[in-house]
């Protein structure tokens, strides 16, 4: 498979993210239809916790590994690349296993006292092993991004989401008469199966690619690799975890502050729900491209930086900023030219007054650009 440029990589990743987003949307609709509002409520309660643990084990790992791989690629130090992957897999394996054991043994506590619903204990218990597979997959994805072979993890991502959907359909048919808690646990099980499959495929491709190229080159000591991984990883993981915690705090803080502003409790909650559930998904949609660009840009920048190629470095930075600007300005224009009508076409309840949404989108004229 040919190496891709960072722009081609960003393009493939964007297409993949759009496709997996569509599959996730179908998954969500299917789940809503089978478990109903109450079941979705349980599922929604578990998800932030699931994402929080994912952030703890994998946030920053893809970035860090891809950067290290790209730097070693410049020196054609292939033995060291595979040594980094080995050490990365061991570190993330140990850390994620400890966390998975902690989650598994405390699933009842997390469900009852943190999420305040004891029915979430089973889904929490079931998702705990997924943490290990996600962490290991993050290391291997970092390898492929660092080697500029974006199409491999992208294709695997699509297969994973499809398999997850199929397993969900099968499990739902089997557990349909056993209550919503078991179906939700089944949905989590489908996620775990998807992650296992993703890891197996990533490892198979990694193993195949690894055997193609092994010239003997100098390798770093384990300690030095651990240091190289942890120094960039820790600040990135801490920022990811803090952002996750902030989201949870926002969910509590915003409605209460709206009540202080004179809204009733119900309208404060619905206003917050409208902002986060309707306005933000539309606003963040163009970010799919920018997020993909940043994933492929990091190893590419690391490569140019390690090879002291300031011309390439300048070109990549300016081109990326120009693309972000192009998307930012286009989105700002789309969101602000007919904001009320735009929201109306996406929201089913057509009797509503869309003035509020329209005004919100109008404000995004300024920040829409800066956000991207």
């Amino acid at each position, binding site marked *: *498979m*040919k190496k*891709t*440029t960072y*722009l*081609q990589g960003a*393009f*493939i990743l964007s297409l993949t993210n759009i496709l997996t987003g569509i599959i996730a949307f179908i998954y969500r609709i299917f789940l809503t239809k089978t478990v109903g509002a109450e079941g979705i409520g349980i599922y929604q309660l578990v998800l932030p916790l699931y994402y929080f643990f994912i952030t703890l084990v994998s946030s*920053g790992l893809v970035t860090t590994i891809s950067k290290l791989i790209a730097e070693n690629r410049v020196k054609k130090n292939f033995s060291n690349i595979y040594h980094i992957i080995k050490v990365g897999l061991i570190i993330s394996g140990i850390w994620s296993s400890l966390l998975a054991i902690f989650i598994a043994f405390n699933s009842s506590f997390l469900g009852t006292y943190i999420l305040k619903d004891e029915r979430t204990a089973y889904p929490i218990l079931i998702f705990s092993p997924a943490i290990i597979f996600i962490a290991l997959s993050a290391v291997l994805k970092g390898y492929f991004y660092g080697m500029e072979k974006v*199409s491999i993890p992208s294709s695997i991502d699509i297969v994973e989401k499809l398999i997850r959907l199929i397993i969900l359909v099968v499990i739902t048919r089997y557990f349909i008469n056993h209550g919503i808690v078991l179906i939700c646990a089944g949905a989590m099980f489908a996620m775990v199966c998807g992650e296992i499959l993703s890891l197996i495929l990533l490892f198979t491709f990694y193993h195949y690619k690894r055997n193609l190229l092994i010239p003997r080159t100098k390798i770093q000591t384990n300690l030095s690799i651990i240091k190289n991984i942890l*120094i*960039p990883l820790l*600040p*990135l993981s*801490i*920022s990811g975890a*803090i952002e996750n915690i*902030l989201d949870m*705090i*926002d969910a509590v*803080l*915003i409605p209460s*502050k*709206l009540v*202080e*502003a*004179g*809204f009733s409790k119900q309208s404060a909650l619905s206003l*917050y729900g409208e*902002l986060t559930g309707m306005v933000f998904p539309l606003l963040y949609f163009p970010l799919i491209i920018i997020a993909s660009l940043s994933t492929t840009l990091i190893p590419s*920048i*690391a490569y140019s*930086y390690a090879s002291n190629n*300031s011309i390439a*470095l*300048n070109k990549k*930075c*300016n081109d990326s*900023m*120009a693309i972000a*600007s*192009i998307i*930012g*300005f*286009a989105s*700002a*224009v*789309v969101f602000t*030219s*007919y904001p009320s*009508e*735009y929201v109306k*076409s996406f929201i089913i309840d057509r009797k509503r007054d869309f003035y509020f949404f329209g005004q*919100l989108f109008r*404000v*995004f004229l*300024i*920040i829409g650009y*800066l*956000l991207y």
Partner: protein
Amino acid sequence: MGFQKKVMECSLSNILIITTSIFFLMPIPKLNIYAYIIGFALSSTYVVFRGMYIIKKRTVIRFNLTKIMAKPAFCAIFMFISIKSINKYLSLHYITKYNMISSFAAGIIIYFIMLFITKTLHLKQFLNVLNIKSFWN
């Protein structure tokens, strides 16, 4: 490039600005939910300019502001004018439910034409990115 601590600093500042605006501005009845948007705007602005300042100060990277800001902004003005005028024309002459979508589509096409004319985007670069066949060779 080894600026992960700066990334953390930007994330923390972002969080601090948004939380402060929620805490102090949101209870003001006139602002209500818009306080969140104000915080969002302030934090995005801060992160963009802080990031650019760090890059300028500590690396050899120099941003070409004409290419990354002025040219796309100029093209976006054309896009905005086209969307508004095409939608107005269609609404006056053909009343269909596709007026808005058609005007958006036309606006995006004009935006891309302008991007190529002003050389913000290069056709060769654009086609190279779209060359999916090469990914699998």
